């Protein structure tokens, strides 16, 4: 088990946001976190990454307690893409090379430059290399940010709504990349998703959060009309389309 989240509890001031959250992720697995706005999805991601300091519970990465790791060690194991990225005045190459920060001393090494070059090629970003990131479209930016997290060479990838601002083609492209790298590099990916159908199409497992607690977790079979209704308050039908369940909301 590469990532195990055990009984995590977190409160903002005195408001509990996460309660007793448990789940495990294997190498190469893609897990989608579902739930309404404010159900604690982003908070959970930040706890795993130790950006937020949780009081209760235990998070283990490769059988090591994340709390006892140094900041730099966490950064070498976990790549994180937040919900929104700021567009600094840096080139794409610089912005991706930055993912090598946890391995750098004074400056980037030849190896860091080479890895950056490779990942830009893999994600078809070469021609953007010297473009400034504040000139990119939403889809391009998302790929750049993903490239940065991948060049970090992480064991675990945490992605907070990676497709939320993207058009259909870019949504599919980004999800394909995520699934591909998870399988090839044996990375455990935890992805916060709002689009249930996109999640169903690409994920191996699902964790549904409701009011900071796990409401359901498991494979595709847990996505039932009842669960969706309980989670989102929307009546749906689930059809099977070419082997993939398709969630269709009933008229509202």
């Amino acid at each position, binding site marked *: 088990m590469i990532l195990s989240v055990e009984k995590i509890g977190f409160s903002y001031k005195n408001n509990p946001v996460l309660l007793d959250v448990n789940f495990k992720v294997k190498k190469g697995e893609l897990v989608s976190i579902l739930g309404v706005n404010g159900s604690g999805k982003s908070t959970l991601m930040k706890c795993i990454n130790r950006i937020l300091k949780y009081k209760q519970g235990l998070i283990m990465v490769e059988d090591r307690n994340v709390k006892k790791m140094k900041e730099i*060690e966490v950064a070498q194991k976990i790549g994180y893409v937040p919900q929104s990225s700021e567009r600094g005045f840096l*080139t794409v190459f610089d912005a991706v090379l930055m993912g090598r920060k946890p391995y750098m001393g004074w400056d980037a090494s030849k190896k860091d*430059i080479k890895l950056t070059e490779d990942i830009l090629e893999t994600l078809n970003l070469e021609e953007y290399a010297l473009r400034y990131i504040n000139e990119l479209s939403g889809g391009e930016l998302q790929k750049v940010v993903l490239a940065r997290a991948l060049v970090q060479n992480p064991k675990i990838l945490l992605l907070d709504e990676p497709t939320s601002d993207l058009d259909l083609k870019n949504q599919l492209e980004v999800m394909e990349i995520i699934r591909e790298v998870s399988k090839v590099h044996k990375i455990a990916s935890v992805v916060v998703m709002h689009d249930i159908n996109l999640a169903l199409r690409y994920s191996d497992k699902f964790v549904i959060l409701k009011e900071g607690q796990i409401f359901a977790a498991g494979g595709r079979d847990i996505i039932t009309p009842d669960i969706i209704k309980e989670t989102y308050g929307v009546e749906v039908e689930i059809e099977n389309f070419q082997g993939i369940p398709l969630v269709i909301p009933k008229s509202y």
Partner: protein
Amino acid sequence: MNFRNSSAKLYEVYTKKKVLIAFFLIILLIVSVIGAIKVGAADLSIYDIIHGLLNSDAPGSSIIWNIRIPRILAALVAGFYMGMEGSVMQSVLRNPLASPYTMGISQGAAFGAAFAIIVLGAGTLHSTQAHAVMVNNPYLTVLAGFLGAIIGVIAILLVARVRNVTPEVMILAGVAMSALFSAGTMFLQYFATETQLAATIFWTFGDVERAVWNDLWIMIIFLMPVLLYFLYHAWDYNSLESGEETAQSLGVNTHSLRLQGMLITSFTSALTVAFLGVIGFVSLISPHIMRRIIGNDHRFLIPSSALLGALILLISDTAARSIISPIVLPVGIVTAFMGAPMFLYIIMKMRR
């Protein structure tokens, strides 16, 4: 065959260009230094300069070594610090308007230095304008200036902690701190034994003419360690460009990075303020100009802003000496004339 250049090659060329720009700045600096030695009440030829620099018996030697070089060196060192201060503060506070001057930190340092000189007796006040204030105990003066600057920093960091605080609000807090410290300095001067107008000007408009060799050494000693510290953290500052959370996910302790950056920049600003007075705007505008030319990669932005800061301050001072010669203006007046319009320009650009 693939005839297209690889992205790594293109990137290498791109970074080399930035190094070239830094070299270009160094050449401009050398030319400006020669110009600055030449210009003055006694106009020196190139021959006089070379002769005077090498030969202590030459007629121009004492003018060069005792008057012009300390002044030029003070402008270079102070400008260099200011360029670094601006680029680092703008990065750690995520605020394009940040600088020791706009945040009220310089004024805090000025208050501290004034307190040391007037109340603690670390210096004396005179009625001549050029050497209105003599610093007898530079260490105490710098230390007190640093403490004053720290008070300003604490206020700024407290404001920065408030969620969603806009850059403009932080600047307003800076205005408040600046007004408070300036009033404090005025108060001290009002009750000082010799309350000359000249001494008031000392802290309001800084002047590199006040530099004497003793003070200069103290300013120079810290230059290299500070530059090395900032360069070591250049990638940390770069990571902040993508936002606080991204930086943290890359293993950067953003809180300590911010605190250290603010403490070091306030220390260096206390160093210059204690000896030269408050010189505004150079720390604000030099990173802005460099950012437009080479972008926000702090590996290059910090040293080139420092070089540009030195260049701006030296040229401003040379202008201050020659515009209405033989009257010599404090360089702070010249930088304010140049910097204030630029400050307004940045504010207007931010609104869009």
